[in-house]
């Protein structure tokens, strides 16, 4: 076994050696993955097994013997599964409706469906309380409901689905757009009913996308701590929050690390499950042959039902963001509705430095993360080399690990010579690059699996080397996924909180940390104003990238963007 493995590795090595650039790229990426993902994580793992400087399982025994933490584990898994199912459901409805029907206001629905990925920490949850809580605008003033249980299971599930379904929408929209509608047309022509065509053609083709969207949602929900921190509360414990609380509330770094490790188990299992499942069901629909859509695979009744469902969700999302605007521009959120600009004046006097820092950090780290993600996706899907699985798994790791743990890991790992990085810009950049690289990889892998390798093989047969094949053939096909991933990681970098709370310094501070401070000190108006500015910056960035793409590639370039 090891002999064949060794021989295969040797053969792969020899092939790679013919392409020195490829070899260097692989080596550099592997080295950085070890240094900036594996090393900080191992620091945390070591801490969880060495509570008193000696190796011991005592921390894990303590964790498993607590009914409360077992409950937290169960709640997290349940919340992850339900959010994945419901979020992908909503995301699929949006993606399918916008890709396969001719409902009115498509652009508007598209914009609304991606807006929630721009969700400033804490403020979204607060806004939900302002709308649907006991004294909420909808629940109390419109519906006159009493004693709504916004805290705990229902409130959190609602917030998580609203926050994370856009991720599913973006993934599935990309997948559905790349499934040629002519396949559906052909099935219809062959006499299939519309429902049968959907069930037997569209759905199976979209399955790999649905699976990967579910994976992303499950893992993101599992690791998320902004919404549960506000909406879960102690009576509905959530593992990621408990890990954070053990470290920051009980000062128990070993126990917090242990909880984080436990959180990793389902994340990584799901990751492998998805890999196994998706890799067995491989569909190629971009074949290089021209396609044209006739959009007749949906009946008019179904179309208007889908339209109604989308409208309902769109209204909910508009309300949530309107509530934030409302908070930013009135004197006292919910009580004194006099218009004021005081909160914005306050933000510009106290927090302007943070706005600038945030832009610099997100602006530098995002393109690097995007390119790195695409390169890794390409290597993993299309190339054979030793340690390929290690590269794939380790680059996805930071995605599954709660930010708190990454943050602590970075501080533990990079606070002494020769890797003295704490307090610098670099540590924030590195954290963001390696934390958001999986986003690019995910979208890159999803699109590459859809592209028939025979297109690339044809280029190679025609005499192109692997570099120009990648540049002239593969890369253009990856452009939509690349820029979608780019914007997605930009948004995440702008809205991240859990890891960076440990990494910001007096020289480099971030807007999200400011929002958290303002929420903590009770300046809800200022926090809302900060959030409005944050959302505006992100929207501006998306528009600028769109404009550049349109300029460079014509109309095609602008529309390749999933945003």
């Amino acid at each position: 076994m090891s002999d064949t493995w060794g021989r295969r590795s040797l053969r792969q090595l020899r092939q790679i050696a013919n392409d020195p650039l490829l070899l260097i790229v692989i080596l550099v990426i592997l080295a950085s993955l070890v240094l900036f993902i594996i090393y900080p994580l191992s620091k945390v793992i070591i801490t969880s097994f060495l509570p008193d400087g000696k190796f011991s399982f005592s921390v894990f025994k303590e964790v498993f013997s607590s009914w409360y933490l077992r409950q937290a584990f169960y709640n997290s898994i349940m919340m992850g599964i339900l959010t994945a199912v419901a979020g992908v459901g909503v995301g699929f409805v949006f993606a399918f409706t916008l890709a396969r029907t001719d409902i009115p206001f498509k652009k508007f629905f598209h914009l609304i469906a991606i807006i929630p990925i721009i969700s400033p920490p804490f403020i979204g949850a607060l806004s939900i309380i302002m709308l649907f809580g006991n004294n909420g605008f909808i629940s109390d003033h419109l519906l006159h409901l009493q004693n709504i249980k916004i805290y705990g299971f229902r409130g959190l599930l609602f917030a998580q689905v609203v926050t994370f379904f856009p991720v599913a929408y973006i993934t599935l929209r990309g997948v559905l757009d790349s499934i040629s509608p002519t396949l559906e047309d052909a099935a219809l022509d062959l006499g299939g009913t519309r429902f049968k065509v959907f069930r037997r053609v569209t759905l199976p083709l979209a399955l790999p996308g649905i699976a990967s969207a579910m994976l992303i949602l499950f893992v993101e929900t599992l690791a998320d701590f902004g919404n549960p921190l506000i909406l879960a509360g102690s009576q509905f414990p959530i593992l990621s929050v408990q890990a954070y609380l053990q470290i920051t509330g009980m000062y128990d770094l070993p126990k917090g690390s242990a909880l984080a490790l436990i959180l990793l188990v389902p994340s990584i299992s799901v990751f492998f499950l998805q890999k196994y499942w998706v890799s067995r069901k491989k569909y190629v629909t971009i074949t290089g042959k021209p396609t044209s859509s006739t959009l007749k695979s949906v009946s008019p009744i179904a179309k208007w039902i889908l339209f109604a469902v989308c409208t309902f969700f769109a209204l909910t999302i508009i309300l949530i963001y309107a509530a934030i605007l409302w908070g930013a521009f009135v004197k006292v959120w919910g009580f004194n509705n006099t218009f004021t600009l005081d909160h914005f004046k306050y933000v510009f006097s106290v927090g302007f430095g943070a706005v600038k820092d945030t832009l610099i950090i997100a602006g530098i780290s995002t393109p690097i993360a995007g390119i790195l993600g695409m390169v890794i996706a390409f290597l993993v899907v299309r190339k054979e080399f030793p340690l390929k699985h290690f590269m794939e798994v380790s680059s996805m790791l930071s995605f599954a690990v709660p930010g708190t743990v990454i943050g602590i890991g970075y501080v533990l790992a990079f606070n002494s010579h020769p890797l003295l990085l704490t307090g610098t810009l670099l540590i924030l950049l590195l954290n963001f690059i390696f934390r958001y690289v999986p986003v690019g990889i995910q979208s890159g892998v999803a699109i590459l699996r859809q592209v028939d390798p025979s297109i690339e093989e044809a280029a190679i047969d025609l005499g192109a080397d692997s570099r120009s094949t990648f540049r002239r053939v593969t890369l253009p096909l990856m452009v939509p996924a690349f820029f979608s991933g780019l914007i997605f990681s930009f948004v995440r970098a702008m809205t991240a909180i859990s890891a960076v709370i440990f990494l910001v310094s007096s020289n480099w501070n971030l807007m999200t940390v400011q929002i958290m401070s303002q929420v903590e000190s009770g300046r809800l108006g200022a926090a809302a104003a900060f959030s409005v500015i944050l959302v505006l910056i992100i929207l501006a960035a998306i528009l600028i990238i769109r404009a550049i793409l349109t300029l460079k590639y014509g109309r095609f370039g602008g529309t390749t963007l999933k945003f």
Partner: protein
Amino acid sequence: MMRKSLLILIAVLLVLPFAVFATAEKEVTADKVVVYASVDEGNAKLILDAFTADTGITASFVHLSSGPALARITAEANNPQADVWMGAPSENHVLAKSQGLSVAYNSPSLSELEDAFKDAEGYWRSFYMNPMAFAVNTEALAKIGAPMPTSWDDLLKPVYKGHIQMPTPQASGTAYNIVSSLVVARGEDAAFQYMAKLNPNVQTYTSSGTGSSKGVAVGQCAIGIQFTPAFFKFIDEGYPLKVVFPKEGVGFEAPAVSIIKGAKNMEAAQILVDWLVSKEGQDVLSEVKTFFYPVNAKATLAMGMPQFSELKTIGVDVQWAGDNKKRLVERWVNEVLPAK
């Protein structure tokens, strides 16, 4: 494009380790000081701006709540990034002292403070204090038609079911203060019986120590329990709140300041510590509307705050509270949370 971006990527990844050496050691001076502020962002800025105006020393700070701050100072022990840890209740500073993260500083300012507000050896001094209280949202209370509560026992009444928010002691020092002061006032078993009876009335236990003030301010709940500054702040902002000090008495916190071991700006750090407890530093607390109680009796109080001496307070031995924290919090999780 691919080649260029690859080269840039490689260049960046190769340069990273070398960039490390560019982070040169900071110079030792007395004209600046770096602070981890567990006082909230806005107030930390106001206090430190006043300090800079008074002394000419530039103070840069990062806001971190007490947990993340201590976690960071611990992780950075080999190479401290900050000179002073300002804010966070004194038990955190007791912990920092016992873990060897802070250094003692003896100066005349230490002897002027009452014993409850300092470490005898000078490792930390408290520079303000806050009592625990209820805040009642008068509009939300009117809506459920409940009377104004005046005592801890009032909160057990069924009329408040699902209308009270307080922080969870798992996360917040504020909530642990509630638990430990109830234990001191009632005895441990009686205190836990009380909290178990209170559990059905609690809408949610917030993770942040100041979470309940937001809940009560926006009317999500009728009653919030926590330290007073955020309550007074919300009243100042115009929210319909009333602060109630329950008649059985309340605990209080005394946030402190420590100099971090290995501070690179030691002299400026010492000046800051002395200034914080001086009359000038203490007057700033009310001038800039922090709604913190000064520890220096000579300092003035902000509008709307009752004299601290008029309140019935419950003193909790900081050392005892720290030693028993793990046990009491676990007991809380096991006995209070499942209570119906």
